[in-house]
């Protein structure tokens, strides 16, 4: 009995000592970003705010190093070397080029990336669920599964989902491939309409009439530039149009789930805090955006022949009630 008490006491002292040491020695987070840009600056701010909320306060028990390469990749590479050489507790790399230079330079230092769309394609990790090495992070890839959850919540009976995309836009093609795969996993069918330029968007949208129960648009630049064409077809043929970005809801789509880069930074900050608390990046799955803002447009829904339930409207971050 006495022995156990002694052991507990010893453990408690040890614990107190370690916290004491932790409190004295500031933890070092080195943040590199490829260029100053409103979205990327918001990520940086989000990381710092989240860390502060989790007890890592800059100037108190946290030292933050921050460098921007000002768009120059040679400087990005030198920043990466500088950070690796100073062996901070975590290196945070914002945007793909910075993340790649850090990954090339860092062998053992923990790395958390942020605002990287395709971590697999960028060869930062070989497995999203278990990265394995010293690197993990948050991807700003469209959370297509969450978008489809939302679509199915509004239209549980939709079986055939139409989309309009530009086959000449690499980003759009890979998103449509991903969409097709995710739809198939849900037993839904994808109906594609191709438009290589904005003037072809109307024709492509018309080709979906009678073949699709709903339309979901990715962040395809060509299609979004001429999104009014898709919306007019949706209204005339009563095919509800859903979007991947919230701005399109203001232009007449039924609903969209979007995110902002400050929240992206906050989520990155959570991962950084976990690494500071001793977790290994290699054991932490790569995350996509968790906090998404639902934008709905009930008037547009009505024009497309459906009504949004009060429940969904109550969940929405923003309800757009303008006629158009």
């Amino acid at each position, binding site marked *: 009995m006495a022995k156990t008490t002694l052991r507990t006491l010893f453990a408690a002292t040890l614990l107190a000592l370690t916290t004491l040491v932790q409190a004295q020695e500031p933890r070092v987070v080195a943040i590199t970003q490829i260029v100053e840009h409103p979205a990327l600056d918001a990520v940086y701010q989000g990381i710092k705010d989240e860390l502060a909320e989790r007890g890592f306060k800059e100037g108190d028990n946290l030292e933050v190093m921050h460098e921007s390469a000002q768009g120059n990749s*040679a*400087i990005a590479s*030198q920043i990466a070397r*500088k950070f690796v*050489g100073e062996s901070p507790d975590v290196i945070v790399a914002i945007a793909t080029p910075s993340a*790649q230079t850090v990954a090339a330079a860092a062998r053992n230092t923990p790395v958390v990336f942020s605002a990287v769309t395709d971590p697999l*394609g*960028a060869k930062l990790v070989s497995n999203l669920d278990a990265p394995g090495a010293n690197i993990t992070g948050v991807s700003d890839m469209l959370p297509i599964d969450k978008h489809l959850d939302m679509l199915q919540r509004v239209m549980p009976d939709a079986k055939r989902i139409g989309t309009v995309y530009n086959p000449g836009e690499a980003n759009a093609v890979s998103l449509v491939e991903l969409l097709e795969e995710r739809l198939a996993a849900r037993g839904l069918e994808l109906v594609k309409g191709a438009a290589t330029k904005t003037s072809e968007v109307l024709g492509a949208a018309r080709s979906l009439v009678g073949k699709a129960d709903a339309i979901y648009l990715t962040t395809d630049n060509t299609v979004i530039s001429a999104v009014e064409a898709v919306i007019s077809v949706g209204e005339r043929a009563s095919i509800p149009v859903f979007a991947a970005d919230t701005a399109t809801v203001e232009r007449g789509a039924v609903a969209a789930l979007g995110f902002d880069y400050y929240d992206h930074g906050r989520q990155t900050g959570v991962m950084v805090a976990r690494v500071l608390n001793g977790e290994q990046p290699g054991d932490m799955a790569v995350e996509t955006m968790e906090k998404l803002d639902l934008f709905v447009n009930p008037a547009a829904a009505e024009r497309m022949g459906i009504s949004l339930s009060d429940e969904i409207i109550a969940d929405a971050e923003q309800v757009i009630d303008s006629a158009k």
Partner: protein
Amino acid sequence: MLSNIALYGAIETGLIYGLVAFGIYLSFRVLDFPDLTVDGSFPLGAAVAAILIIDGWNPWLATGCAVMAGMAAGAVTALLNVKLKILNLLASILTMIALYSVNLRIMGRPNVALLTEETVLTPWYDLDLAFHQVPVLLFTIVVFVALILLWRFMKSETGLAMRATGANARMARAQGIATGAMIVLGVAVSNGLVGLAGALFAQSQGAADVTMGVGVIVIGLASLIGGEAVVTPSTVVRALIACVVGAIIYRLAIAFALNADFLGLQAQDLNLITAVLVTLAIVLPGVRTSIANRLTRNKA
């Protein structure tokens, strides 16, 4: 102070930009041809090497193709100037802009990752050296070989004809030198070197990116001028050594600037520091000669 990794990193990047400075020395100094193509041929070399490497080519072969691609880009600039009589500066800007589209076409996307691919560096990591020392060793060898080849070339009959073309084109023509051909050859070799630099840079930093050419010309020029300030370029060898020395000094200066927290400097001040350094490098040699002149006058 600088950590070992930051120091070796600066030297590594400096060696790569030494190759760029070789190219700029050839065009700006030897041929007197202000060539901005390099902002496009640097990522061109990176793009060609990267896409061939992920296609399974031998990395050295891919790097060789990057050199050829750079040479082709340079030849286009020179031909626009020589055959179509477009002002040299404008011709190079045209090629540079066109190369942005070409590079995107070659890569098929804005960024091609090489992080897990076999590169020219891969076999060298088996050596008993620290991770950050390997690229320095390999690139020192590459730069040394390039320096020797360039030096021999400049002493050859063709090289002399090229130098004559740059020094006095009318006189060179009068001596029977095909000055147009010399310009095409010189600008091609210059951009071939820059393509080589781009290919090596992509392999050492783990990716080719379509934006990586931004500012290459400024950095190359700064390296050239800075090197000339330190190593007086009285002979071809000294001029070539000056290129490498200047490029490394420039990179060390940036590494120190990144570490200059004690001066209250921040990341966004970097471009200003670069401009100040380049200005100093340009002005200092003049100051040195005027002081030297004053001293000799006093003696007399």
